[in-house]
């Protein structure tokens, strides 16, 4: 799975996710990536999120929308909200990670799985890629 979340100069957010799914999936299995609110969500009032991991857990929890709702209603920052929802995924036995960008331009990575490939670039000059 690959994904991106962005805030532009006009203050607008957007999120995108694309995947091949899981090796050996059967019966037309679909994970969270194409399920709006689970693996992908964007709302200028909350945040932009893209997720990767055990899709079934992300769908049941509604991870991407849950993060945005915590930020919008609970006034949590991106790292606090993403960590809290990732903890819930982990508590249920799921694994994976999320990336998020807030309306103020702050961003967060949160994950509990090996091999998490991620990168960040900002108008402030950040430009870095990481592999967990």
């Amino acid at each position: 799975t690959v994904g991106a979340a962005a805030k532009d100069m006009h203050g607008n957010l957007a999120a995108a996710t694309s995947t091949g799914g899981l090796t050996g999936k059967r019966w037309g299995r679909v994970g969270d990536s194409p399920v709006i609110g689970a693996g992908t969500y964007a709302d200028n009032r909350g945040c932009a999120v893209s997720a990767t991991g055990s899709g079934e857990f992300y769908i049941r929890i509604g991870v991407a929308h849950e993060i945005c709702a915590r930020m919008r209603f609970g006034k949590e920052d991106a790292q606090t909200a993403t960590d809290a929802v990732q903890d819930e995924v982990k508590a249920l036995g799921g694994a994976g990670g999320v990336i998020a960008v807030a309306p103020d331009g702050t961003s967060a990575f949160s994950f509990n799985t090996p091999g998490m490939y991620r990168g960040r670039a900002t108008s402030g000059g950040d430009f870095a890629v990481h592999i967990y």
Partner: protein
Amino acid sequence: MQNWTLVIHGGAGAMARGTMTPERDAAQRAGLAAALEAGKAVLASGGAALDAVEAAVKVLEDNPGFNAGRGAVFTYEGVNELDAAIMDGRNRAAGAVTGLTRTRNPISAARAVMEKSPHVMLQAPGADRFARERGLDQVDPSYFRTEERWQQLQTMKENTKTGAVFDADMKYG
């Protein structure tokens, strides 16, 4: 004043940093950097977040080193079935596709669903037909195949026979 942010992920591959060859590590980092550059170019020129996330994801879909588009994993039946979604934070417009097998960039198909249809999600052959009718690049299904992903499927199938299944209850749907 410029004030933009872009974050990307290349998935949670089975290979953590410690298990990769230096060459593979370098290739993955280069792939991520190329995706960042593509999105950054849009944002730094005052472009929309929506265009930036599509541009970044398309680069990773075209890179066989990531599980999306070219280089995606295989289903049990040995097919690459591709899923994607995109969402615009301005108005909560959203588009998603599942089970694509012929559209080169699934994220662009998802965007076409969002912008050129009254729907949110389209799936399987109908989604490919919709993408084709909207002029999106079509490829032979074999375009998505890599030997590495094919072997991963064979290994997984072998494991199910010997019982050394890495997911005992095969929770794949």
